[in-house]
């Protein structure tokens, strides 16, 4: 018997009480909504230690990123797919032109998303992603952080020390 077979054998002979899959539609429908997604997104992002800026039509992305972090020596600017208002996170997939590690090894990371691409919460976020395998996907909310030394919050544990999000009109 392979290990898989013996695990399955043990699971079947456990004869657990059977529970049905719950319907989440009421929960999703009744979850907290926001009057202004953009305002909530910016507030949540700042709460997680990040900075937000809404681009003017025609405003230069690089200049706006520099303006967010004037002291930064180097800034990585990457494209995200959408943002989540309840927690300020941005969803990204495998980057096209740079290695994946760019998301983490950069001291300053700026993510650009369409201002219209904001969802209220994680239910909406996963509904947007659907059930297809996507290879790689990540939600990032603010800079890397730790509180492992006496619960003192420190930014820049391993990943970016500073994170900004530009909302493109």
């Amino acid at each position, binding site marked *: 018997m392979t290990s898989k077979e013996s695990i399955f054998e043990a*699971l079947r002979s456990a004869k657990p009480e059977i529970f*049905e*899959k719950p319907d989440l539609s009421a929960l999703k429908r009744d979850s907290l909504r926001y009057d202004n997604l953009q305002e909530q997104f910016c507030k949540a992002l700042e709460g997680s230690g990040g900075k937000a800026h809404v681009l003017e039509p025609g405003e230069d992305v690089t200049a706006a990123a520099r303006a967010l972090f004037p002291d930064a020596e180097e800034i990585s600017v990457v494209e995200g797919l959408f943002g989540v208002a309840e*927690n300020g996170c941005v969803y990204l997939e495998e980057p096209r032109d740079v290695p994946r590690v760019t998301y983490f090894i950069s001291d300053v990371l700026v993510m650009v998303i369409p201002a219209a691409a904001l969802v209220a919460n994680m239910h909406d976020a996963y509904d947007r992603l659907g*059930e297809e395998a996507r290879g790689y996907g990540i939600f990032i909310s603010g800079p890397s952080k730790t509180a492992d*030394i006496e619960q003192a919050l*420190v930014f820049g544990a391993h990943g970016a020390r500073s994170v900004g999000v530009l909302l493109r009109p």
Partner: protein
Amino acid sequence: MKKIDYAKVDWQDETLWLVRGKRDRLAKALPEWEALRDAASRIKLYSNSHLPELLEQFETRAIANGAVVHWAKDAAEYRQIIGDLLTSHGVRHFVKSKSMLSEECGLRPYLESLGIETVETDLGERIIQLLGSRPSHIVLPAIHVKREEVGALFEKEMGTEPGNSDPTYLTHAARRNLREHFLHADAAMTGANFAVASTGEIVVCTNEGNADMGTSIPPLQIAAFGIDKIVPDRESLGVFTRLLARTATGQPITTYTTHYSAPRKGSEFHIVIVDNGRSSILADREHFRLLNCLRCGGCMNTCPVYRRIGGYAYSYFIPGPVGINLGMQADPKKHKGNLSACTLCHSCSVLCPAKVDLADQIYRSRQHYATSARKKLISKGMTFVMNEPWRLNAALGVAPLGMRVLKGLGFSWGKGRAFPDIPSPKKTKR
């Protein structure tokens, strides 16, 4: 007897209570909080009662995504699969992120016996590894270590300035030091917070980005998880990602929530699915809800006993309410002493995001295991005394004297506590 550092006890109690407070504020901000907990519990009950089909579905999808799937029925198989993978790929330097499963299965000592340098990359776990110690909390592994101790440790291990124990300074020193390990690693490993059957992906939640940094560089990535980490679909991730960090650390979500399904270009992705006793928990009618656990650590932060005694007071490697119960499943003879570390206040059960009946399980285990010959004798004695009013009154009459004798003898369980003054008994009539 070891001297108790009361200042440290108070600090830990207050600090964990602050984490609990942050959780409360976030939970109260969501009117749907209780509906979320209910959904999480029901999804887990569904998943754990449909494991064969969901695991089968996960494996099919994971293979289609390009991952290699391995099955381990116990800790020895888990260690061997990972050891063989690393040796067959010629791995000398190995970085790993926090995984309770790896602690459960004794991975690091095994790999070190094979000559593979294994570096914990979560800051708290790294501190613990360098101290040669073990985690005292599953989410905040170094909660019991003071900054001065970290300063002295990093001075020795990383050459930081003597006497500098500033958390920012020390964290950034560890960042520089661990970055060297990341850049030279031959393989990286993570656990999994969730394994999604519909997509064959695993989800890893961290704040530091250590798992992400680790898996983004080397040509070999390993993810290992217990069968209870299976969730049916992405829709259910919406529920769990909203609950996990809010309960664990009082954040709306972890900084990084990463979904891995396909191997990164030019690398291999191996997934190890582990039973190691979980199928036996499933078969236990009184304890199967333990498999609902998300390993958020929330029950530790709220437990009035854990907050004061800390993780090392428990014999099992996972402490607190969930650790008491998991220990009883792993080896009841060895871990039944932990059952005493509970006041049955039920705070853990009320808080648990997946509604594990933690306190009720402890109560039930006590009925089976917490009866020693001495306790039976005490119980018999009490019955004898209390069945007759005159016996009770006589006993109360001599009690003040008994207290003075006990105080004089300096009984250890009285340290740090006030002895009660027992009033003279009123005569009661039958």
